[in-house]
């Protein structure tokens, strides 16, 4: 029947410009009723922008949107909602101190006279929860529930409003492999019930598993739309990146030497809960090897790194580094002994954004005699040093060393941090999510830098959430789940699926304190 092939949503010729950048350039996207349509592209390709336009958060510079063949104007999320379009955002938009129920009804609250009347709403939510298999506790506070339940709350928000078009923005970024399977099942269910789904991702496996069709964006332009049944992972990847990508890093065999870092029974308290975030962790890292701690976000990696580098106090255990007990040492002492840290959050810890590039380059070394004398900064020394690093690591900025870092792109900001931390020639480089938000070319570069450090006989401790990166780059993988180490593996002898089971806590193996 022709009806089934009708498009429920059409975005035609959409262009969106921000000052200095064209995020979307003449893009056409058509969503069929009842289909699951993936939107694929690298970070910065324009996927989120396009969906934000559909959801009314932005207005297109030009182009039109049609629903059911009729042109519509979506100037706010209210309009989108009126058109039955809903969105689950990558960073959940939930009020943490409100209950699940309050979050679901926010903006469409049922009232009796002047007051809120939640009984009817609660009933409807529980019915929807049953129907679609979305388990939630309506009275729990969002701050107390798991990430999976938070996501289900976001989905229920859409279903409560009778949304027919559901947009998912990178929904699997925060889920375990098992929760991802569940989500895929839920999405297929929703499509079967007649909902139309648009789902933004850069994960090829998921697209192959659940999508009907896929539109690929690259650098703001639409590269094409393909039927999943007719394509392959390799073809999708080629369309996404524009060239053939080698999925693995070229590196020679590791030759580990003596132990540089020994962690014993380390315990770190959690700020949010009474349980510890890191429980009794013991392992070592040797010269000439890259050890990676893999795990789902939120399983204690952040607290572990903070404890290791000195940003937080640990409540138990010892840390021995380069022959010294640094358990109680200050951050500066650890740095002096040869520990370098590429932080998870480059804006929070890695850079003083309002400082210039050169001021940031010496952030870890300004107190050394090379850069100051009697308390007075040696500006020329600072300038020369920064320019050397800028050149060596190809850090690009508007005005060179005097650029205010806030104005630099994320990729170059990250390069500046990496330049600074690697140039210290550290005995141990702690790199947390070093390639987050960067494109394939930059990622390749940084991976090569990490391997180069290792080949020089230094130690690298990598914390990563990207399984591809974990498998490609590391020599030894440790899995962290709920604050404990639950497995140690050689990347050549384990599959991603198997790794996922450990990351989700489904399997466990003892990890030796020292290899």
């Amino acid at each position: 029947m022709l009806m089934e092939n009708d498009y429920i949503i059409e975005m035609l010729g959409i262009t969106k410009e921000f000052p200095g950048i064209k995020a979307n350039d003449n893009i056409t996207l058509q969503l069929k009723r009842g289909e699951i349509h993936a939107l694929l592209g690298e970070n910065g390709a324009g996927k989120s922008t396009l969906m934000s336009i559909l959801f009314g958060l932005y207005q297109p510079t030009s182009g039109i949107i049609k629903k059911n063949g009729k042109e519509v104007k979506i100037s706010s999320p209210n309009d989108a909602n009126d058109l039955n379009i809903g969105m689950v955002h990558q960073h959940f938009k939930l009020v943490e101190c409100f209950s699940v129920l309050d979050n679901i009804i926010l903006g469409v609250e049922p009232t009796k006279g002047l007051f809120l009347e939640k009984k009817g709403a609660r009933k409807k939510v529980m019915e929807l929860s049953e129907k679609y298999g979305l388990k939630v506790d309506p009275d729990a506070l969002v701050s107390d529930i798991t990430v999976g339940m938070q996501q289900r709350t976001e989905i229920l928000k859409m279903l409560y409003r009778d949304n027919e078009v559901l947009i998912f923005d990178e929904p699997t970024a925060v889920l375990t492999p098992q929760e991802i399977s569940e989500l895929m099942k839920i999405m297929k269910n929703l499509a079967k019930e007649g909902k139309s789904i648009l789902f933004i991702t850069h994960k090829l496996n998921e697209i192959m598993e659940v999508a009907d069709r896929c539109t690929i964006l690259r650098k703001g332009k639409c590269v094409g739309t393909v039927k999943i049944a007719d394509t392959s992972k390799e073809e999708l990847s080629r369309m996404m990146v524009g060239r053939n990508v080698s999925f693995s890093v070229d590196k020679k065999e590791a030759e580990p030497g003596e132990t540089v870092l020994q962690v014993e029974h380390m315990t770190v308290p959690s700020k949010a809960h009474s349980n510890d975030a890191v429980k009794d962790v013991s392992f070592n890292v040797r010269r000439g090897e890259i050890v990676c701690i893999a795990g789902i976000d939120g399983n204690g990696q952040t607290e572990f790194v903070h404890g290791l580098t000195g940003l937080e106090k640990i409540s138990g255990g010892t840390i021995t580094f380069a022959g010294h007990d640094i358990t109680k040492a200050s951050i500066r002492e650890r740095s002096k002994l040869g520990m370098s840290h590429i932080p998870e959050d480059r804006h929070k810890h890695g850079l003083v954004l309002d400082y210039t590039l050169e001021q940031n380059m010496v952030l870890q070394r300004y107190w050394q005699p090379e850069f100051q004398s009697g308390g007075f900064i040696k500006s020329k020394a600072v300038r020369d040093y920064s320019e050397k690093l800028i050149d060596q690591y190809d850090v690009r900025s508007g005005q060179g060393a005097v650029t205010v870092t806030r104005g630099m792109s994320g990729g170059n900001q990250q390069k500046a941090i990496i330049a600074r931390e690697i140039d210290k020639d550290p005995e141990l480089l702690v790199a947390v999510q070093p390639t987050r938000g960067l494109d394939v070319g930059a990622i390749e570069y940084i991976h090569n830098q990490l391997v180069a450090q290792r080949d020089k006989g230094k130690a690298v401790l990598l914390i990563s959430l990207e399984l591809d990166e974990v498998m490609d780059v590391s020599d030894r993988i440790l899995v962290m789940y709920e604050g404990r180490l639950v497995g140690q593996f050689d990347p050549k002898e384990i599959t991603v699926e198997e790794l996922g089971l450990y990351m989700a806590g489904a399997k466990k193996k003892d990890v030796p304190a020292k290899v």
Partner: protein
Amino acid sequence: MFLLIKFTLLYAVVLMLVALGGMFSERSGVINIALEGIMVIGGLAGVFVLSLLGDKMPAPLLVAVSILVSALAGIIYSLLLGFSAITLKADQTIGGTALNMLATAIAIVIVKAFNNSAATGNGAASAKLTYSNAAFIYKIGPFTINIFLIIGILLLICSYVFLFRTKWGLRLRSCGEHPQAADSVGINVYQWRYIGVAISGALGGIGGFAYIVPSVTTWNFEVGVAGAGFLALAVMIFGQWKPFNIAAAAVFFAVFRSLANISDSTVLANLGLSKNIYSMMPFIASMIILAFTSKNSKAPKAEGIPYDKGAR
């Protein structure tokens, strides 16, 4: 003893009203340091009504009109903060401080100009206004109650109900906790923040009026409100932005404040501590309490951060 209760209730109502005002503003996401200034402006407006129309209106009407005027003046003045903080997204602490200084200056200039033109004198005019506060005070048996006590309790209950039992309260709170979430469900964050600031203006204005009127019949506007607006902020923090906790905190702080007033006329005079020492006490008490409670303070998450809808 009666005096202590009388003064405590008086100050408690003032502190509570203003602190509730601060609560509404901060719960919507705007830090309101300008409460001191709003009290002055609200008080000024109300006192002017009394001064000019004191003998021309029946008492109940006078009470109603003057309180409404003080609330209105407070709202209008608070919109200056709103405009600066919400629309222009400027620093809220600086804006608030500016409005405090401006309020004192405006009050003195207006009152002096008024006295000048009324008296056609040649010397420097005074910054004092005189009025009758009889309409506000009632005698029930041995107690004197002023009407602000009743108004205060009513407003307290209304505040609680509004904030936690209506959809408007839910929306206002969401703007102070997670404005992006509110925006994504179609709530107009700017509008609700203006509302929060306006409510704080109204309550602050009434609070300022309540500070001035019941106790004396002449007010020197050079004095301002002697730090009551700032004490109210401490009350708000101590009350953790919850209406009934704020009321309790207000009573607590008011006890100290009223000790200063009765220090020279009661048993306390024997202790030989001067008025200055008592005046210091509410502030010292605040600091001690804040030191102990601030570690786990749960302020509205997004307060003080201007909301930018178009931020990429």
